[in-house]
C-alpha cells in the first residue's frame, strides 16, 4: 500500500542518482546506487521499496552478470511517471543539484517556463 509521500534526505539522494541515470539512459543496480549516494544498503533498499510501490521506478533482471560466475543483478530505471515526479521534486527541493546535473550532462539545455496553475 502506498502511503503519503515522505521526502527524506536519502529519498532525495536516490532520486538524484536515478535522475542522472535517466539523463544518461543508464540503468542502476543496488550496489551502484549505494556507492553513488554513500548511504547504507538497508536505507537505499527501503527507498527503492517505496519508489517501486509508488510506481516511480521499475526493476528488471539483467540477462547475465558481465563477469562470469557472478549472480545476476536487478536493474532499475525511472518510469515516465517517476521521471516527471522526480524532476518536479528535485526542482523544488534540490534546484542547485538538478541544475548542476543538467549543466554537466545536457549543456545548453533551457528549462521550459512553468504553466500557470502547475504545482
Amino acid at each position, binding site marked *: 500500500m502506498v502511503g503519503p509521500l515522505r521526502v527524506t534526505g536519502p529519498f532525495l539522494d536516490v532520486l538524484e542518482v536515478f535522475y542522472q541515470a535517466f539523463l544518461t539512459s543508464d540503468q542502476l543496480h543496488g*550496489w551502484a546506487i549505494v556507492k553513488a549516494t554513500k548511504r547504507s544498503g*538497508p536505507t537505499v533498499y527501503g527507498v527503492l521499496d517505496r519508489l517501486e510501490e509508488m510506481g516511480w521506478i521499475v*526493476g528488471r533482471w539483467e540477462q547475465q552478470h558481465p563477469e562470469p560466475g557472478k549472480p545476476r543483478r*536487478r536493474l532499475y530505471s525511472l518510469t515516465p511517471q517517476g521521471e516527471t515526479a522526480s524532476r518536479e521534486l528535485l526542482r523544488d527541493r534540490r534546484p542547485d543539484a538538478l541544475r548542476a546535473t543538467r549543466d554537466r550532462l545536457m549543456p545548453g539545455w533551457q528549462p521550459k517556463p512553468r504553466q500557470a496553475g502547475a504545482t
Partner: protein
Amino acid sequence: VITGILLSILTSLAAAEITAINPWCAKKLVRWSARRRYADNQARAKIRAEELEAFIDARPGNLLKLMTAAAFAAAAVAGMTRKRARRPTRVHSGRRVRRLGAQVAGLASIVGGLGFIASGGASLANGTTAIAQLTMAGSDGLFLIAVGMVAIGKCETLATLIAQLSCASWSIGGYFTWHSHLWAPVLLVYAVACAVLFLFGAMGDSGARKQDRTQAKGADSTSAT
C-alpha cells in the same frame, strides 16, 4: 613449544576456515533478512533475496560482506519489531508466560535427561556403577527427555509440571548426594531455577484462566444483548 606451534597452526587454520565461510554465512543471512523483511509479500521477498545476494557478492572483502549482511539483518529485525508493535496483541500475556514456562521447563528437562544418561555412562566408565544402575539412569534420562519434548511441543500442563518437579527433585537429590563435588552448586542453582519455573508457570496459568473467564463473560453478555 610443540603445543604452542600446534596451537598457532590450529588457530590460523580455524581463522582461515572462518574467513572462508563468511561469504556463505553472509548470503544465508541476507536471504533470511529478505524473507523476514518482506514476510507479507512473498514475491518481493524472493526477488530481494536474490538481489541482495548479488549485492553482497559485489561487496569487497569477506568481513565486509558479513557486516553488510548483518546490517540488512538488523534492519529486518527492526522492521519486524515495528510491525509487531503496530499489530494489536491477541495473545494474553498470561498465556505467553505459561508457554514460555513450559518451553523453558521442557528444555531443562531434556538437559537433565541428557545429564542423567551422561553421568550414568561416565560412572560405568569409571567402574563405580553396575549395568543395572546404568539402565536405570538411562531410563530416567529418557523419561525426562520425553517429558521435556511433550512440554515443549504441546505446552501440556501435566508434562510441564512433571518436567519441573522431576528436574527439581533430581537436582536437589544430586546436590545432597554430591554436595562436596565441584558441580554441586550447579545442581542447587538448577533446583532454584526449577522452583522459579514452577512459579512462573503457575502465574501464567492463573493469567490464562482469568482471560478465559473474561472472554466467557464477554461472550455471555454479547449473547444476552
